[in-house]
């Protein structure tokens, strides 16, 4: 697909040509203040031509703020500069102007509108009209769109609504759309957490294509929570911490995610990847599901001892992600049995309320829709299992007791700001996830069902959350983790069940590592790097 011999090399060019040509993107002295809070201080960094440059930082590091300055949502303080190929942009950045100078943005979760067709998604905002009729010339638009797919050497049917495409094709459309704004061999594409919803297989496809684009000379600025992804694909990395620049344009060569995490946090992470170790398999199982049939499940079963952390994973359509919801009575199963601590439960009559009464707690994957009431306070959200459950509905809520019960969890989970009255929507993603967890851990559940508990959460919060879940397990709680993220699973689990076609097809025991998990899921050889790395790309030492 790419011809390396005829294309410019990435990083050497970026670093070596500093004197002759200006960098693709240069920001200088970008500061942003909200009220009395300075969230970004004098940030300046450069993205070279033809490189993948990653911008990393914890939640609250100012990373999202910087991106919002680059996409024009926030106004930086006077004195800031943003230059593209040496030409300064007017501030605040106007999307149309940025586009004219070759900067494209791929929005979170690819930024496509599902019900519109591929062609419409490709061309919206760029549509041209006839002078008199004001009609769109669809043949022209179609040709423009097709040209981009030709450049990518991947083709997607133009008239299909995007929601009917496969995940890989959606990724292709997102890249193709961004490429329209970049001149061939030039320009910059900003990926703002664009890949967070992509499965492993789609990620490989995504970076294979991006690699081709970057080799042709276009630059990419990658904003991602996933350090393993950054370590795999980025040429250089810029690190923000507490609104300040820690590293600007550090070459990534052979730096593992551990070192990136250290840069980001400013400290070492303890035990980044160790499994559970609290299992007491000799006990009667805390929970046992057998022969579960549902919309995507077909005879699935799992048995978890008290203190054990069991992961379930598989391909996106294998049904593993339904299991926590069946266990928590949210998704009604068509058949199967459930035994909780020796007591059989009627799955056909199971409900969330019955599950809570049985000591089962669910931390759902979709935090914004199912995990939290975003405009309520931390304390109110955390108290919901109590105020929403059975009991005397009309008795006044004892706020003092409510807060007292919550306080240890705020400390335990290092909630920041540590304010039980803070409105949840104002917290960063990692802290929101901690609130969801606190809400259920405060009730000392016997069984904890988790769906992607550390998704879109920075590495520091991830560490805290993992530790809290392990503590719960150490106290005798049985934990089920459904996840498509091999790193999360390997950090948490004692053993892992791999799903295929709605049932368990394999089991990994003894705290399996990420590579082992991916290999089992794809049952292919082993996890290949997301982008042909190191020597092949000829990085500077």
């Amino acid at each position, binding site marked *: 697909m790419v011809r390396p011999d005829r294309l410019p090399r990435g990083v050497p060019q970026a670093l070596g040509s500093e004197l002759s040509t200006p960098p693709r993107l240069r920001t200088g002295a970008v500061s942003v203040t909200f009220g009395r809070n300075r969230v970004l201080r004098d940030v300046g960094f450069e993205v070279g031509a033809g490189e993948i440059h990653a911008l990393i930082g914890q939640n609250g590091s100012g990373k999202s703020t910087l991106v919002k300055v680059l996409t024009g949502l926030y106004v930086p303080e006077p004195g800031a500069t943003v230059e593209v190929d040496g030409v300064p942009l007017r501030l605040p950045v106007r999307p149309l102007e940025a586009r004219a100078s070759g900067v494209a943005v791929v929005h979170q979760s690819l930024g496509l509108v599902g019900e*519109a067709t591929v062609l419409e998604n490709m061309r*919206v905002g760029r549509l041209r*009209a006839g002078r008199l009729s004001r009609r769109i010339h669809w043949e022209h638009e179609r040709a423009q769109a097709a040209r981009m797919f030709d450049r990518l050497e991947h083709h997607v049917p133009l008239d299909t609504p995007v929601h009917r495409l496969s995940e890989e094709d959606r990724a292709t459309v997102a890249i193709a759309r961004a490429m329209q704004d970049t001149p061939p061999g030039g320009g910059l594409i900003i990926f703002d957490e664009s890949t967070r*919803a992509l499965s492993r297989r789609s990620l490989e496809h995504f970076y294979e294509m991006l690699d081709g684009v970057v080799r042709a000379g276009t630059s990419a600025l990658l904003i991602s929570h996933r350090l393993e992804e950054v370590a795999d694909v980025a040429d250089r990395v810029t690190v923000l911490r507490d609104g300040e620049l820690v590293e600007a344009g550090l070459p990534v060569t052979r730096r593992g995610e551990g070192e990136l995490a250290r840069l980001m946090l400013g400290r070492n992470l303890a035990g980044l990847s160790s499994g559970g170790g609290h299992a007491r398999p000799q006990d009667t199982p805390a929970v046992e599901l057998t022969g579960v049939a549902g919309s995507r499940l077909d005879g699935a079963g799992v048995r978890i001892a008290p203190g054990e952390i069991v992961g379930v994973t598989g391909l996106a359509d294998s049904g593993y992600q339904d299991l926590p919801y069946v266990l928590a009575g949210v998704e009604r199963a068509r058949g199967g049995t459930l035994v909780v601590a020796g007591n059989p439960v009627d799955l056909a009559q199971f409900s969330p309320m019955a599950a809570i009464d049985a000591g089962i707690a669910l931390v759902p994957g979709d935090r914004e829709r199912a995990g939290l009431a975003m405009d309520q306070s931390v304390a109110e959200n955390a108290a919901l299992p109590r105020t929403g459950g059975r009991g005397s509905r009309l008795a006044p809520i004892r706020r003092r007791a409510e807060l007292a019960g919550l306080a240890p969890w705020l400390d335990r989970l290092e909630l920041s700001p540590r304010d039980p009255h803070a409105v949840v929507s104002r917290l960063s993603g990692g802290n929101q996830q901690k609130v969801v967890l606190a809400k259920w851990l405060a009730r000392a559940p016997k069984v904890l069902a988790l769906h992607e508990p550390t998704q879109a959460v920075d590495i520091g919060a991830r560490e805290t959350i993992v530790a809290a879940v392990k503590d719960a397990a150490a106290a005798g709680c049985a934990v089920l983790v459904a996840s498509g993220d091999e790193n999360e699973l390997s950090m948490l689990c004692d053993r892992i069940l791999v799903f295929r076609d709605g049932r368990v097809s394999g089991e990994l025991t003894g705290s399996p590592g990420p590579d082992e998990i991916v290999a089992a899921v794809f049952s292919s050889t082993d996890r290949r790097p997301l982008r042909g790395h190191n020597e092949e790309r000829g990085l500077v030492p």
Partner: protein
Amino acid sequence: MTTHDTLAVPARSQSLGRFGSRFAALAFWLLLAVLYGVLRPETFLTAGTFQTIFGSQQALVFLTAALLCTIIVGEFVDMSVASNFGFAAVLVAVLTVNEHWNVWLAAVAAVAVSTLVGLVNGWLTVLLGVNTIVVTLGMGTFLLGLGLWITDLTPVSGLPYDFAQIALHPIGSLPVGFYEGVALMLVFAYVMRFTPLGRNMRFVGANREVSRLAGIRVNRLRLGAFTVAGLIAGVGGVVAAAATGGFDATVSQSYLLPIFAATFLGTAILEPGKFNPLGTLLAVYFLATGILGLQLLGAAGWVSSVFYGGVLVIAVTISTLLHRRVF
């Protein structure tokens, strides 16, 4: 990993279902007409019925067009269009009859005021971020009150004859107002179907941030939608005042429910699951047929409330179900 994996629906059954839902409402309309024709052939199957159905709905056509402007760019929902329309109508009458302005000047002034009201609505919701429903509900009630005040709570009439011609001049057997409404909807449909502006409006309605990053001037478009909604409501009000020779401020409130009923019913016609101008236009006449038939069958004044209210509930339900199935 996503939990919403798309289901591969066979293309043929999809298009059959689409075809079916496109025209189901039209078939139902035809059925309704046949039914009334059989039950009351002597009164229903007359030219007068035809003229009543197609010649009396201009106000509703203008009002639904105004509502569509904002609904398509994702603003749920502008409650002030009916009052804005009513205020324009009252203003023409008051300025001409009571204040002795030139009627054409009064008409221009009324349209300008309505447009300004739309701009204020837009300014409050788009630039200050105030909740759309609350702002427009308040604005609507405010305008209704103003209208009652300047008319001293009584209907004002006595607009000149040649002014009435902008609404009533007959072409064929229908008043010119009918053609004005149809022309408005055709232009609207053209913009939505064929122009970049229409496409951009739909994308802003679907996802504002995606649209902004695609280079669409989102806020300008939303502000424009509110302003044009005010403009259309104002023109509609002036035409309505011309048709009746004056206006009663309280009348505009009776339009509120039919506007929503027709607009939501419109999502079940021609382009299932989408707010669309031509579907809405057909829905207006569909509703008029239903009401008129019931009245000819002997139902009393309460029937329009029952019918419009019932249709609104059914139409919203159909619209929701269609949206779920199509997307």
